[in-house]
């Protein structure tokens, strides 16, 4: 078994504004492109990132404009093709993660939300983890193997 080594890392912080949804997709896909992914893999990553960032904008900070509305994204990739992306906010947190992750569940009644965000993140990546503290924020970590269909360490 080869030891997994980290080959590259980035971190970026930006304001939780909807105009930055496109920016975050481009940022992560530009970084992931260093792994020479397929178009399908890049589309999966862009969609999963868009869902996580949109959640921060719609749910984490809501309409409260007084607090510091920031989203931080970090990404890294490893020698075995593992790509890890972490999206973090300092918003209201999620009281019931299990409920929030149910397909078609939406915590927003003011906007037309499909409630499919977490389902899409889950299905377009190999692993999804959500950690949240009510009142302190949420961290979403997604892992995807690029160029390694088995998604296993060698």
């Amino acid at each position, binding site marked *: 078994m080869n030891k997994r080594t980290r080959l590259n890392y980035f971190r970026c912080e930006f304001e939780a504004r*909807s105009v930055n*949804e496109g920016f975050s997709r481009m940022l992560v896909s530009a970084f992931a492109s260093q792994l020479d992914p397929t178009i399908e893999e890049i589309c999966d990553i*862009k*969609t999963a990132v868009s*869902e996580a960032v949109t959640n921060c904008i719609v749910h984490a900070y809501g309409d409260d404009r007084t607090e510091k509305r920031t989203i931080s994204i970090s990404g890294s990739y490893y020698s075995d093709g593992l790509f890890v992306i972490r999206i973090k906010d300092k918003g209201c947190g999620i009281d019931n993660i299990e409920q929030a992750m149910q397909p078609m569940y939406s915590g927003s009644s003011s906007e*037309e939300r499909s*409630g*499919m*965000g977490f389902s899409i993140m889950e299905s377009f990546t190999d692993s999804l983890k959500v950690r949240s503290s009510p009142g302190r924020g949420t961290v979403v970590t997604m892992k995807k193997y690029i160029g390694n269909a088995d998604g296993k360490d060698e």
Partner: protein
Amino acid sequence: MEMTAVDREGRLTVTLSGEIDHHSAKDIREAIDRLLVEAHPKALVLDLSGIDFMDSSGLGLVLGRYRRAKETGTEMYLANTSDRVGKILKMAGVDKLIRTLRKDAENKSKGENRQ
């Protein structure tokens, strides 16, 4: 994001191109709803042939327009969905709820001959 609309004999075809995310969905939603009220068409066709990217906000947009159209007695169809967009629609079961027209079927029903 760009949108064009053609109203022909009670059939309103709205063609969207670019990216549908939470940021762009609001403007599209408002524009289509305005058209639905003004034109009150028999059928609404959402042509997604120019969509490069769509996430769950696109699902919300499509399902929301379906509900809105149904309220006013308008039949809604989707047209020219890419494999990528189709995959996301299928995840939410939208493919079972809203019929997707294929290009040839759509032209036939419009009575058009394209060279």
